[in-house]
C-alpha cells in the first residue's frame, strides 16, 4: 500500500465525521469539517507526540487541548487514525457505554484526551496550567489549543489571554477557528468580535494570521511559523479563517450545520464529494 497523503487523511477524516454523526443522528459537523485540515496538520506534521505509548501527563511531548469540545468528531477521527485507539471504536461515537462521548472527556480513559471540554471557554486556562507545569519540569515541548470564534465571547477566555500575555507564557500556541458562524447566526449578528488581531496584540500576544485554514499547506506553514515564534517571551495565537462545513457543498456558506446531523440521502451526497481513500472507512 502506498503512503496516504495529507489530503487522503483529510478526506478520510471528513468521511469519518459525516458517517459518525449520521449514524447517531446527532453531533456537530460544521465546525469539525471546517477544522479538518488544522487537526490533520497538527497531529501529522506539527506536534511531537507519541500515540503508541499513551501518557496522560504528556511528559516530554507536545500536548493539545480541544477547547471547543463540540468538535469531538474530528478529534476522535484524527486520534484514532494516528493510533491512539482502534479506528473501529469510531462506531461507538455518542452511543451508550462508549468512551467517545458527545463531548470529549478523560473520564472514561480514552487515549489522547487529557481534559473534558464542552462547556466553552475553559481550554486556554487549562493550557496555561499545563504550559506552566512544562516549564517547572524543564520540558521544552509546547501546548496547543483550538477555540471556536464564537467561544471567545466567553469572559474566561480573556482572563486567560490577559494572564498568558502579562506573564509571558511563551510555550502556548492557541488557534482560533475563525469561521464567523455560531449557533444563532454569524458572529457579526450575534456579538461581533471586532479586530481580533489588534485585541490579541494589545494583550501581549504574537499573532499569526491564516488566510485559508482549509488549505493544508497554509495551515502547516502558519503553525510552523507559530512554533518558531514560541519561546520568545510571548504566547502565540493563530487566527485561522475557515469555512464551516468545508468539503460538503450544501454545508458551506451557512451556520445551519453547526449542530445538525445529515439525513441518509444527504450523507450519500456528502460522501460522494469525499470519495473513500486508500485508508478505507472505519
Amino acid at each position, binding site marked *: 500500500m502506498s503512503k496516504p497523503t495529507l489530503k487522503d487523511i483529510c478526506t478520510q477524516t471528513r468521511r469519518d465525521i459525516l458517517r459518525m454523526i449520521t449514524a447517531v443522528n446527532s453531533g456537530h459537523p460544521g465546525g469539525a469539517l471546517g477544522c479538518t485540515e488544522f487537526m490533520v496538520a497538527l497531529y501529522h506534521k506539527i506536534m511531537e507526540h507519541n500515540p503508541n505509548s499513551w501518557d*496522560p*501527563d*504528556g*511528559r516530554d511531548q507536545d*500536548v493539545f*487541548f480541544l477547547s471547543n469540545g463540540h468538535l469531538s468528531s474530528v478529534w476522535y477521527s484524527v486520534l484514532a487514525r494516528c493510533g491512539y485507539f482502534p479506528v473501529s471504536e469510531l462506531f461507538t461515537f455518542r452511543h451508550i457505554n462508549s468512551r467517545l462521548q458527545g463531548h470529549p*472527556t*478523560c*473520564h472514561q480513559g480514552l487515549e489522547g484526551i*487529557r*481534559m*473534558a*471540554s*464542552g*462547556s466553552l*471557554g*475553559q*481550554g486556554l*486556562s*487549562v*493550557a*496555561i*496550567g*499545563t*504550559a*506552566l*507545569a*512544562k516549564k*517547572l*519540569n524543564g*520540558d521544552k515541548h509546547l501546548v496547543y489549543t483550538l477555540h471556536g470564534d464564537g467561544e471567545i465571547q466567553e*469572559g*474566561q477566555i480573556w*482572563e*486567560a489571554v*490577559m*494572564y498568558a500575555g*502579562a506573564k509571558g507564557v511563551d510555550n502556548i500556541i492557541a488557534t482560533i477557528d475563525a469561521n464567523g458562524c455560531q449557533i444563532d447566526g454569524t458572529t457579526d449578528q450575534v456579538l461581533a468580535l471586532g479586530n481580533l488581531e489588534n485585541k490579541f496584540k494589545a494583550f501581549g500576544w504574537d499573532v499569526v494570521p491564516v488566510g485559508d485554514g482549509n488549505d493544508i499547506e497554509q495551515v502547516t506553514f502558519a503553525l510552523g511559523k507559530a512554533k518558531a515564534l514560541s519561546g520568545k517571551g510571548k504566547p502565540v495565537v493563530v487566527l485561522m479563517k475557515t469555512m464551516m462545513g468545508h468539503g460538503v457543498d450544501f454545508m458551506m456558506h451557512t451556520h445551519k450545520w453547526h449542530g445538525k446531523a445529515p439525513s441518509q440521502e444527504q450523507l450519500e451526497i456528502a460522501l460522494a464529494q469525499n470519495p473513500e481513500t486508500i485508508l478505507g472507512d472505519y
Partner: protein
Amino acid sequence: MMKKYEILGSKDTRSGFGDALAELGNENPNIVALCADLTESLKMDKFASEHPDRFFQTGIAEANMICMAAGLTIGGKIPFTGTFANFSTARVYDQIRQSVAYSEKNVKICASHAGLTLGEDGATHQTLEDIGMMKMLPGMVVINPCDYNQTKAATRAVAEYVGPVYLRFGRPKVPVFIPEDMPFEIGKAVKLNEGKDVTIVATGHLVWEAVQAAEILEEKGISVDLINIHTIKPLDAAAIIDSVKVTGCIVTAEEHNIVGGLGESISSLLAQECPTPQEFVAVNDVFGESGTPARLMKKYHLDADAIVEKAEKVIARKNK
C-alpha cells in the same frame, strides 16, 4: 464524666492552612499554589515568598485560576488554589465541575472566609451554600476542619490524597483544642465524647460550640455522644449509625444553610439506614448580614445555646 478539652490557644483556621502549605512546599517540589489576589487573607504569603517559582498570582480571575490548576496537574503538579469560599465555589462552579471533578484532576480547592463568621463584609461574601454545591459533585471530597490544628493536619492529608478536594476554613480566631498530634484521616469521624442520651455531630467552627453545649448538657444530667465530622464527603456513615443506635436521637450543627449541608447528608443517611429523630443547627435558608462573628452566630442560632436547645428538643421527641 465528659472529657475535658483545654483551650490551647486562639488562632484562625486559615493560618493552619497557610502554615501547612508552607511546610508542604519545603517537603514536596510538586506542590504548587495559585491565588486570586488574596494571598495574605489566605495566609499563602509564606509559601509565595519561599517558593516564588511555584506560586501563581492569577489576579482577580478565579475561573482562569481553577482551570489553570486543573492544567497544572497534567505534568504531575499538586495545585492548591486559594480564595474566599464564595469565589472558590459559586463563582467557578462550572469550571470545577468540568475541568476538576469530571476530569478527575488532583486539585485542592482551598477556601477561606466561609460562612457567617466572615463577619462585617456581609452576605455578598458569606457563603452558606458551598458545602452543598461541592458535595453534589461526583468524586469531590469535602472537608471542613474545626480549629487551627485540625486545619493544618487536614491540609497535609489532602496533599497526600490523590483526587479533587474542597477544603473549607474560616476567618476569625477561634479556640484551638484539637491536640496537635491527633492524626487526620480523610472520611473518618473524630469521637470527642462518649455518651448515651443524644448524639451531637458538628463540623467546622460549630465543633467548639458543640463541646461547650455538651458541657452545659452534662450539668443538666444529659450525656452527649459528641462527634466531630471534618469530612462531609465521604461521610463516616458507620460512626453516625453506631452512635444513634445507642442514643436514639441526633443534633447536627454547622455554619451553613440547612439546605445542602452536613445535616442534610446525615438525614439522608439515617432515612435509609436507621430512621432517627434529628434536629438541625444551621442557617435556616436565608442570607447573612454584616456584624461581628459572635453577634451573627447568636442571631442566627449557631452557638452553644442553640445546640443545647435543639438537643433538649430532640430528646423530648425521642421520649414521646
